[in-house]
């Protein structure tokens, strides 16, 4: 089995989760990478994606598990030769276990390009932060794990992901409404208990 990490940039961020799955399936067929199929009435490829991201979120840290005997290096080469130009494999590793990556990933790191720097302690020191989510006021404080400006305009934020998700667009709106205008953002890492999947899954 292979777990690979891929990016959705340059327009591909607008391709939905289900369509991304469809494109990965077609890429594997075109690349002639042999993949296991389910044994049911309508056999389908055994491929599993990391938790869905919302349409429009640029990402460099999506993951996918594929039931195949292909070796990691040749997988990367073949995949990238046949994948849509904006869905690209960044790294891949072999694994013996069918990890349920969709359920394991619990936090994600994002870059927020901001107009101005502000003191992130103003957020981190709060006990609760209520924002409006479709008419319901919800506390998002526990979903904000870490914030750190690396330059005057670039904020690295670690936010809760998976079952306890804080969407990046909601956080961007919170920043814009309260601290500084967010010009753009993208997802850069995904973590399982603080570690990247490629560093912790065997």
């Amino acid at each position, binding site marked *: 089995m292979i777990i690979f990490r891929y990016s959705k940039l*340059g*327009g*591909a961020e*607008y*391709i*939905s989760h*289900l*369509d991304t799955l*469809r*494109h990965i*399936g*077609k*890429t*594997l*067929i*075109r690349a002639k990478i042999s993949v296991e199929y389910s044994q049911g*009435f*309508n056999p389908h490829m055994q491929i599993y994606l990391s938790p869905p991201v919302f*349409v*429009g979120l640029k990402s460099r840290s999506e993951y996918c598990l594929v039931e195949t005997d292909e070796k990691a290096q040749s997988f990367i080469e073949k995949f990238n030769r*046949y*994948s*849509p*130009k*904006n869905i690209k494999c960044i790294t891949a590793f072999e694994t013996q276990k069918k990890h349920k990556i969709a359920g394991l990933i619990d936090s994600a790191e994002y870059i927020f390009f901001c107009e101005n720097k502000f003191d992130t302690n103003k957020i981190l020191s709060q006990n609760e932060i209520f924002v409006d989510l479709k008419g319901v006021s919800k506390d998002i404080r526990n979903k904000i794990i870490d914030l750190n400006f690396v330059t005057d305009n670039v904020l690295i934020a670690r936010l809760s992901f998976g079952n306890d998700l804080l969407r990046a*667009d909601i956080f961007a709106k919170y920043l814009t409404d309260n601290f500084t205008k967010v010009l753009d953002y993208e997802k850069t890492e995904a973590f399982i208990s603080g570690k990247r999947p490629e560093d912790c899954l065997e």
Partner: protein
Amino acid sequence: MVLDEILKTVEKPARYIGGEYGERDLVWNKFNCCICFPDVYEVGMSNLGIRIVEESLMQVDGVTVDRAFTPWEDFGNALRENKIPLYSLGLKKPLKDFDMLGFSLQFELSYTEVLRMLDLANIPLLSCDRDESYPIIQGGGPCAFNPEPIADFFDLFVIGDGEEVMQEIAKLKLKYDSKAEFLQAVSTLDGVYVPSLMQVNYGDNRLISGVSGKTRVKKAVCRDLDSAVFPNSMTVGNIEAVFDRAVIEVMRGCPRGCRFCQAGFLYRPIRFRSVETLKKQAISLIENTGFDELSLNSLSTGDYPCLLELLKELKKSLPKTQIALPSLRVDSFSEEFTTQSRKSSLTFAPEAGTQRLRDVINKDVTEDEIERCILRAIETGITSIKLYFMMGLPTETDEDLDGIVNVVYKIRELYSKNRKMSKSLRISVSCSTFIPKPFTPFQWERQITKDEFEQKIARLKEKLFVKGVNFSWNNFEVSELEAVLARGDRRLSKVILSAYRSGAHLDAWSEFFKPEIWDSALKEHGLSASDYTREHKTDEILAWDFVDNIVTKDYLLKEKEKAYSRTVTGSCFNGCKGCGLQKEYRCKL
């Protein structure tokens, strides 16, 4: 950046970003054409015609071909509000910058979308308002056979097979800078109609009294389908297309000649591709796209003479690919075709409920054949059957409607006696209103009125309200408008423009269709739907008479007479029926 903000707020933004797998690397060229599809991305991406034309144009030196689809309401409004002109998907160039926009006209109800696309591209809608700085607006596809209702918006139409004539048009566009010279030059080609070169006169009785100028346009015919241009790859849509699969065209034309079917007459003569060519095209398409399904398209794939050989070859070369056989006739439904399919449903179209009416429409299928087909289907484990019928056909009586009900009851009976599955049978019956279409033997017939429609539906509804049967029907106003636009004349351009200005758009989508807009647009110009849905006299000048479909009017009249005398003409396979094409083409049957 603004576009990015818009994309984040609209439904299915992947419709508008391009960059699909298999997209060509485009560069701005000497002649730049954008193929425009007046329906949404996922519908257009399933269309084979535009891909054939695109491939054919790309083979001409100095030509670049891009694509554009109609935007959904949300994206269209956002473009307008932000003053972003509609752009092509590949090069992201405003449509206005192209030398030519080629619209694919598949369905009459897409006409307002042509206007919406031009409007969103800041291009004047009427051809007389466009000077040399605007692209040439061209239309093609089945609706171009009667282009008169939209004549005022287009500079030229391609009538017939597009793959060869489009190349000639591109070459002439490279030669002539002046629009007038170019239009004059292309008008000499078979299959090209330039509306500005023909004038239509109307008599006191509001009927067409005559035409002047260039008054005859013969359809373009691609003589050798086997060697004709066909794309060996295709772009894989960013979002799932309505038919998300690879497609090959096994034959063009249909030997059956059902008297209501426009495509059956428009796509004559019958031409086949060889098994060898089709196999090559199929392998290349599957390898280049990664689709797991291949559709063998044509108007009647069961009539392709080498179907079994082709299926055998495809199974050998593409063992993992599911083969889809759309448009299978009841009498060609055989076990060989179905045993390899895992499908649990069967769709077929008896079209009429009684043998008498099937004879009238020349749907050469007998009660026995329907029964045998259903039995075979039940034996292969099918648990869901979808039936298509038409109502309002010429000579139809209540007995014929009851015939539809009888077919359904018969199927239920057959299933209960022969069922292989424990699952109960689901039958879905879909009934559409007959639309008299140009170039068919029924082109002179009237369409039923709303009162008749309601009576017929009530009768069927009452008898088809049975467990396990789902009965559905088309909206009458949609069918009526389709009939008006299909048989319309040039006066309808003003009506279409008024309807568009009053808010008609995306008419093919029920949530947007507003019949009242069309009613008032017709009234505004002193017309009514019945001007077009009425019975036409056989000696009347019809709006589309200037188009030479090669099938003669005499033949259509004879077929009309045979319909009324309940005489079946049968398939071209049983001998040439002398429709007119035999004078110029030998159908290789």
